[in-house]
């Protein structure tokens, strides 16, 4: 007779609610014909709101559940909020997009919810196997969604590329996990930490660490594992690109930090050096390549690579200051990038026909409010006060300076200056140039408007009053140290 372990559902309740909402949409969508998108969006939002409420108890917990598979702590609490915001805003701005494209695909929302649930399992995972299952749940949902535009060859190409390279990265991750298991005899993060603290650090464990690092770097799209990013971001449906660029990145960074700071602290000297090199390459290549892009989706893809580089600096600096900087940055980046891609989706119109930079000419005249919002997002991406992006960069860079990484910060600041050029190009196009033919002003649906208002407000609010949020981030990283 097998006796079940003690089951406490507090930790998995938010993810469980998301899955439940997904299943409800799946069943309801089958019966509805008209208005199916609006109804599934509503169910999704209700599920996410419920998950946000269910997520609250995690803030004051410091526990592990399901025989140490899942950590129930403030760290998961903070990142679950980031993921839920990302999923919620994505769902809000997808309705209009799917209606415009004429895709009555309610499964879209189901997969977004499942992907978010996978992200939460990844964030909370206290065992490499758990992290892997979460990673695959989110990856498979995203592969399918990336190929979601039925008539678009580009979308199919994006899905195929992501699938093959993602499978390769998962393989690397698993191989690394296998080597770590061989070295330590366990895959639980606390078990690994205990084993390595006892002083048995061989080449086997180091090789495992390296391979896991490659797997994570692929998911956060750090150079030289970034090759898929521009093509996939360009080919995927725009709201989904937004979700990928913030949600997947947040979840991957969260698990990256948890694994490396909880289980592999004994190797910190080794992996800090590797990450140093990767961060420098990522920032330089991301920012320089973004300068020459004419397609705004590709530009934002390279910009997202560059931001992965900045976040890596937070990991290199380490300590409470560095990691809380990473958390704050992920929150700020979520609002900013979702908003920017939301506007790209709107301006793109049917069939994503207008995604070049030149299509932004005259937006300041035809849609003044949209242009203001877009400018705020570009300011935030470039890291100019009083936006959230500035505070994020400031915290991460000062944490790195405090640890003595002067050259790293100098490179980061220089590449940020390069980035100002291409972010401001968008603003210049909107206000200083006029198109040959003025297209009709864009009409916003209530859901899209809500998503854009929330992200603009978020960028400004946590940028102008950052103290509370920096405090919360600092409080959330306590379980790791």
């Amino acid at each position, binding site marked *: 007779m097998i006796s079940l372990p003690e089951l406490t559902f507090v930790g998995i309740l938010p993810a469980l609610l998301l899955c439940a909402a997904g299943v409800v949409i799946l069943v309801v969508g089958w019966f509805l014909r008209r208005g199916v998108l609006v109804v599934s969006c509503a169910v999704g939002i209700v599920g996410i709101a419920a998950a946000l409420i269910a997520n609250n108890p995690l803030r004051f917990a410091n526990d592990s559940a399901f025989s140490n598979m899942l950590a129930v702590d403030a760290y998961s609490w903070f990142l679950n909020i980031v993921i839920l915001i990302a999923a919620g805003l994505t769902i809000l701005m997808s309705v209009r997009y799917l209606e415009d494209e004429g895709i009555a*695909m309610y499964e879209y929302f189901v997969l977004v919810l499942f992907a978010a649930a996978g992200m939460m399992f990844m964030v909370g995972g206290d065992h490499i196997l758990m992290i892997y299952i979460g990673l695959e749940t989110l990856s*498979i*949902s995203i592969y399918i969604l990336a190929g979601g535009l039925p008539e678009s060859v580009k979308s199919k190409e994006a899905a195929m590329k992501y699938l093959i390279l993602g499978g390769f990265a998962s393989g690397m991750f698993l191989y690394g996990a296998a080597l770590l298991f061989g*070295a330590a*005899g366990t895959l639980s993060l606390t078990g690994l930490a205990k084993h390595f603290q006892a002083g048995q650090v*061989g080449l086997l464990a180091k090789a495992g660490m390296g391979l896991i690092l490659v797997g994570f770097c692929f998911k956060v799209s750090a150079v030289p594992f970034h090759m898929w990013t521009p093509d996939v971001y360009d080919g995927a449906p725009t709201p989904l690109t937004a979700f990928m660029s913030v949600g997947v990145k947040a979840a991957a960074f969260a698990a990256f930090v948890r694994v490396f700071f909880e289980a592999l602290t004994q190797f910190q000297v080794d992996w800090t050096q590797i990450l140093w090199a990767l961060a420098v390459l990522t920032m330089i290549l991301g920012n320089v390549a973004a300068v020459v892009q004419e397609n705004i989706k590709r530009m934002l893809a390279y910009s997202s690579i560059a931001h992965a580089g900045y976040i890596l600096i937070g990991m290199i600096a380490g300590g409470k200051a560095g990691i809380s900087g990473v958390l704050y940055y992920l929150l700020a980046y979520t609002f900013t990038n979702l908003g920017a891609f939301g506007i790209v989706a709107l301006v793109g119109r049917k069939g994503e026909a207008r995604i070049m930079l030149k299509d932004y000419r005259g937006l300041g005249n035809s849609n003044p409010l949209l242009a203001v919002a877009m400018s705020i997002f570009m300011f935030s991406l470039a890291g100019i006060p009083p936006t959230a992006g500035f505070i994020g960069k400031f915290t991460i860079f000062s944490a790195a300076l405090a640890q003595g990484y002067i050259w790293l910060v100098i490179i980061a600041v220089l590449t940020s200056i390069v980035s100002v050029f291409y972010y401001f190009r968008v603003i210049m196009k909107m206000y200083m140039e006029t198109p040959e033919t003025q297209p009709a002003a864009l009409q916003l649906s209530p859901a899209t408007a809500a998503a854009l208002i929330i992200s603009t407000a978020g960028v400004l609010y946590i940028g102008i009053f950052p103290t509370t949020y920096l405090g919360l981030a600092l409080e959330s990283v306590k379980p790791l140290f």
Partner: protein
Amino acid sequence: MELVYFYILSFIVVVSAVFVVFLRRPLHNVLFMILTMIGVACLMLQLEAEFIAMVQLIVYAGAVMVLFLFVVMLVNITQADLLSQLSAVRGWAGALVAFAIFGVILTVFKVGGQTAAPQAQAAQHLTNTELVARELFTTYLLPFEVASVLLLAAIIGAVILVRKGR
């Protein structure tokens, strides 16, 4: 005696793996891949990991490779198609990378240092399969259940991809 079996099995595995790479017809490649899988399953049996051996047989040799076979037979790729894809330079570069990786893996295992015994304590009176079941439904209960979400997402995906646009 065990050692003799080990060498015979390893020989079969390695030789059929070489055939997988060098034979010209895709059908033969797949058939030899199945032989490799069966050989590996036998090696697992020798290590007294009968559960893994059976999974290897059923999942890989059975399900996955039969799927491969279906695809190969349905798509009906000819030799010319395959060869035109692969230039000689690329082939050699691939071989070089493969050997480099092989070298790295070999070094890692040779001088990798101590491997540790699994920390989970095996109860003596249980068989392999019973132990796996016990662990799956106690320690690994959550990943096991979350895998169902993963599979549901994959099923939805399969339906979406084959469905004609609505």
